[in-house]
């Protein structure tokens, strides 16, 4: 039996975590399972809203499908006050009660991402129902967009580069800056206001050549941001951009962007997870479901039968709360009721997982342009490890790199792991942030991919909010 204790820091910080270990082992040993085929994993799920029960099991299929091992995972944060024997027995049971919302799928295809998409598309409805703007649900209660000092540093560095290029007649007429994931527009406003001031002092009239492009997935967010920077309207364009495929909308920008600014986008994009267990590589497949109790309770609350529930959820995800209310006024007399239904489902949503053997890394598509070969240095020869593939973030990042001018840079603030070793010492998602999904981003993988494309990537602590989990990625052409 393997035992994998991941929350290393919590084992020192938390008496509850330590005290849970003995009872966990006793419960496992008492379970009617072949201990030689059991892996025990202990996490610390820091997200109070998440997709996990305190104890879950995950089948580990063998390549020839003849046999299966079992991984049993515990959330140490929630193991202190529960009947561990009962939970272990239930987790190891071959029965899977509850209401499945989809078949087994790779993580990136899970319907949790449809919920995530709905959140950004119908953000105004969610905000109205919950009574707070999304910024308030961010850690710290606001975005990190209002720091003039950070803006000033970036702008002065741009001026230095532009002056040099201008001296060799290599400065293009239009000077592009791109922001992906614009939030409420405060970052753009802070940046542009500061730009005007500094440009006036610099005296080269770069402002008149500036093209500030705001790209976002959500038209609602984009419209709000556009209003925020209305006084720079002549310099600003707003574009709906599919975050994982920026080149579709922004292909015209190839090699032209002097600065690409991205904040809190990547952690919110679909991802798979891969694992290496005993030298074999596996894909983590997931299945969204509602527990039996939750399904019954929600169905009753909204006047639906349990059998109708899955179809109703699918309909919500397809047409959103407003149209759902119009289409089924009996159940949802107003959009607020439909949003209440959405909130209840989201809160109750759970994921079960299993490990499926991969035929080969080269046959696994990370993105349409990238095979799993890129993962080999990270996942092989390192012992047992489970990591995010960050497919959405990689698609976005690799689609953005070609947009960067040879003297340009990408600056990105997000939840990045900065070392492969961190996957052995903590839990990094998925979790729930308000109505959206959060996953930390596999920083070493982005670094590796960038390196293969001639970019150096550096990770530094987010200076504007010391102590936060946010890390700043800076990518620039190297050599």
């Amino acid at each position, binding site marked *: 039996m393997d035992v994998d204790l991941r929350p290393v820091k919590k084992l020192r910080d938390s008496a509850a975590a330590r005290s849970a270990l003995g009872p966990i082992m006793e419960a496992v040993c008492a379970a009617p399972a072949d201990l030689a085929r059991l892996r025990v994993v202990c996490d610390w799920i820091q997200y109070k809203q998440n997709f996990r029960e305190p104890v879950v099991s995950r089948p580990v299929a063998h390549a020839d499908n003849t046999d299966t091992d079992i991984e049993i995972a515990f959330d140490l944060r929630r193991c202190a006050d529960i009947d561990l024997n009962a939970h272990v027995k239930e987790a190891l049971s071959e029965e899977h009660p509850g209401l499945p919302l989809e078949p087994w799928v790779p993580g990136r295809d899970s319907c949790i991402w449809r919920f995530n998409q709905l959140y950004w598309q119908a953000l105004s409805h969610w905000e109205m129902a919950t009574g707070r703007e999304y910024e308030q649900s961010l850690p710290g209660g606001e975005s990190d967009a209002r720091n003039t000092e950070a803006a000033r540093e970036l702008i002065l560095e741009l001026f230095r580069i532009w002056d040099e*290029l201008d001296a060799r007649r*290599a400065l293009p007429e239009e000077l592009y800056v791109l922001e992906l994931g614009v939030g409420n527009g405060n970052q753009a406003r802070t940046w542009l206001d500061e730009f005007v001031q500094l440009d006036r002092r610099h005296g080269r009239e770069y402002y008149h050549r500036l093209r500030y492009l705001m790209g976002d997935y959500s038209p609602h967010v984009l419209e709000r941001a556009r209003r925020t920077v209305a006084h720079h309207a002549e310099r600003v364009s707003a574009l709906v951009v599919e975050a994982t495929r920026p080149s579709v909308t922004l292909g015209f920008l190839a*090699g032209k962007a002097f600065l690409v600014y991205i904040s809190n986008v990547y952690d919110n994009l679909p991802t798979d997870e891969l694992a290496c267990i005993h030298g074999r590589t596996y894909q983590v497949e997931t299945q969204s479901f509602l527990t039996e109790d939750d399904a019954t309770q929600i169905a009753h609350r909204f006047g639906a039968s349990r059998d109708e529930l899955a179809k109703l959820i699918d309909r919500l995800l397809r047409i959103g709360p407003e149209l759902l209310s119009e289409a089924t006024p009996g159940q949802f007399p107003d959009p607020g009721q439909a949003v209440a239904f959405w909130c209840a489902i989201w809160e109750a949503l759970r994921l079960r997982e299993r490990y499926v053997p991969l035929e080969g890394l080269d046959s696994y598509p990370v993105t349409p342009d990238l095979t799993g*070969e890129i993962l080999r240095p990270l996942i092989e020869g390192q012992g047992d490890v489970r990591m995010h593939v960050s497919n959405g973030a990689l698609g976005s990042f690799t689609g953005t790199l070609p947009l960067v001018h040879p*003297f340009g840079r990408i600056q990105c603030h997000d939840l990045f792991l900065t070392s492969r070793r961190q996957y052995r010492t903590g839990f990094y998602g998925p979790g729930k942030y308000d109505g959206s999904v959060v996953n930390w981003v596999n920083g070493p993988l982005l670094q590796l991919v960038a*390196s*293969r494309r001639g970019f150096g990537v550096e990770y530094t602590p987010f200076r504007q909010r010391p102590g936060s989990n946010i890390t700043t990625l800076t990518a620039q*052409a190297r*050599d």
Partner: protein
Amino acid sequence: MEPKSPVPTNTVLLPTTVVGSYSVPEWLERLKTEYYQRRISAQHLAEIHEVAIKAAVKDQELAGIDIVSDGELRRDNDVDYFLARIPGVNIPQRAKTDYFDYYETEVTRPLPEGPETSLGLAGDFRFTRQLTGKPIKFSFTGPFSLSRRIRDDAYTEPGELVRALARRLNAEARELAEAGAELLQIDEPFLAGYPEQVELAIEAVNIVTEDVPVSWALHVCYGNRYARPSWEGHYDFLFPAVKAARVDQVVLEFARKGLDDLRLIRQHGWDKWLGLGVIDVKNPEVEAAELVASRIRRALEYVPAGRLMINPDCGLRHLAPEVARQKLRAMVAGVALVRAELPGAELPGAELGGGETA
């Protein structure tokens, strides 16, 4: 002085060639990296390279290229293959995370000089020579670009390192000529990033070419590392300094950047050969033959057909193998369209060299 023809006389107009590097397949990249992480032996990698070079030459022949290259497939990148062989260049760490990464290199004392220190390029040429009856272009990175990747703690005047490298390369070029090389090309991929140093670079080029009786080409581009330009700008910086270069041809990129810089050829009275880049090597989209033809027709407004050679913008190393093959075929087809429009394009004995593999 009349420039040496880079191809045998009695040949077709608008000969086609490559700049140097050929597509490096993903499997070869992986094996190269395995070598730099010491997981396969140098001997095995050398054998793998020979097989890959044979395939690259065959691909070029099948595409109809008139003057072929070895695809530079032995080289890890455009700099390290040379620096690792030059005595006096120190490389403290020779393992690499990825084969294409650059070494960190340094010189701490003046480079030793003398004929006993061969880089082995003549051996590389001989291997290719016995593979094909076609004319061969053999290219190597120039002294200015090589110097940009060396930390110089040896020379008080930075130009001295460039000149010392140039003397080393001159000795190598003499060996290449003795081995039968007829067309040598100096690549200066870093020069566009240091336009103020063009005179030094040209001075060094002339040291390399001195008393080496071959046809010389000089390739200057805006960089192709990772299929991205390293610099931006125009070729203005190259002129008129390049007119002092003792070379017979300049090989420039036009497909990606547009043809505006052709004006410089007329403006500065460049009366030698021009290697015209008609294939964008940074874009996987395959050009139509008619687009290639239109680029050549435009160039013919500035350069007579008798002094125009047709090539991609730069090396093909970052293109997928099938894309590289298609692009070469498109280039040859585009040339054929223009040749058909030119009187006397099909000259007696029009075949270049002896055809396919000898």
